[in-house]
């Protein structure tokens, strides 16, 4: 390359591919600020969202009654579960309506009405149905919603061990 040519190129404005000082500074400062803000905000977000990420406690089976006491006619049984609510532990009492079907299969229904959460009971009106005292919702023996409520009664997980009925988690009705 001759001297002459070199002279020509130096007249053109300098084309640089790298970023300007201003850009560099704003990226660095912006990045640092974002990092520091993240350091402050992330722990708080994780703190607030902890219940979402905690594993749900597996509900243990609770011994309720001897299998021999279960009849075709639903009966009400009360039992206590161990409940952990944050820093409080308690033993609330739950209710289940337990009966056998024609095949002798035992099943347990939750007494919480699926309409608005009142407590249902078996055969209070003499129609061999579960009746809700609040808005006259009715359910069949299997918990099928006959009127008012939109969904069937919830069901307990049932386990039978050495002649005793154990009840576990509440799940949506599997019988209807």
């Amino acid at each position, binding site marked *: 390359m001759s001297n002459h040519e070199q002279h020509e190129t130096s007249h053109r404005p300098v084309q640089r591919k790298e970023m300007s000082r201003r850009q560099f500074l704003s990226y660095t400062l912006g990045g640092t600020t974002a990092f520091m803000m993240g350091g402050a905000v992330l722990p708080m977000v994780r703190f607030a969202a902890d*219940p979402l990420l905690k594993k749900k406690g597996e509900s243990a089976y609770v011994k309720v009654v001897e299998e021999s006491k279960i009849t075709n006619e639903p009966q009400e049984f009360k039992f206590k579960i161990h409940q952990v*609510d*944050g820093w409080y532990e308690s033993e609330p009492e739950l209710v289940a309506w337990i009966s056998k079907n024609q095949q002798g299969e035992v099943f347990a229904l939750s007494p919480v009405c699926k309409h608005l959460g009142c407590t249902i009971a078996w055969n209070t009106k003499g129609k061999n149905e579960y009746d809700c005292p609040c808005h006259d919702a009715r359910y069949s023996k299997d918990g099928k919603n006959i009127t008012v409520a939109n969904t069937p009664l919830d069901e307990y997980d049932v386990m039978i061990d050495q002649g005793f009925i154990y009840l576990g988690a509440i799940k949506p009705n599997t019988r209807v």
Partner: protein
Amino acid sequence: MFKNVYNWIDERLDITPLWRDVADHEVPEHVNPAHHFSAFVYCFGGLTFFITVIQILSGMFLTMYYVPDIINAYASVDFLQHQVAFGQIVRGMHHFGASLVIVMMFLHTLRVFFTGSYKAPREMNWVVGMLIFFIMLGLGFTGYLLPWDNKAYYATKVGVEIAASVPYIGSYIADFLYGGDIVGAQTLTRFFAIHVFFLPGALIAMLAAHFLMIRKQGISGPL
């Protein structure tokens, strides 16, 4: 005496233009009930703010006695209402003010809607107003749980179940609000924090934006 104090500060800090800027502005004739009585409909926004201020103040005082804990919450509310002097009044202000603020806000929204005040160039103020509306509903929802009575418990249970019916993310919203598996100790502390710190903070920011915009753009013209 007060004038001297004011002058002494004003000489040093020149505070007169500051409050003049905020307080000194003309109320147009068409929004002044002294000119046209029917212009009282323009007062609902100001009334909403007035009641909001009462809510913030009475709420601050209620926290002097209230405890957000499942064993003690109901007892502390019972105590502050029945044992503390003027407790019934302070809690009454907060209780009835909560309903009133929703009513006033709704009337204000109707006024803005029927006078067409949401139209350009004030669309952003309508959007901010809607955000304020939802923040207020959130304050009502979270505050309702705090007395920890049966009504509070079931209202929250039903409310969270409604939130849980949102497609896809519903169960996450419910878990976030419950803070546990049931409406319990962690739900109460959560709702307390949201009611007393998070939502009021957001509310004040939104109100500031609401007022700045209306001062900048001026109130909309007569119908």
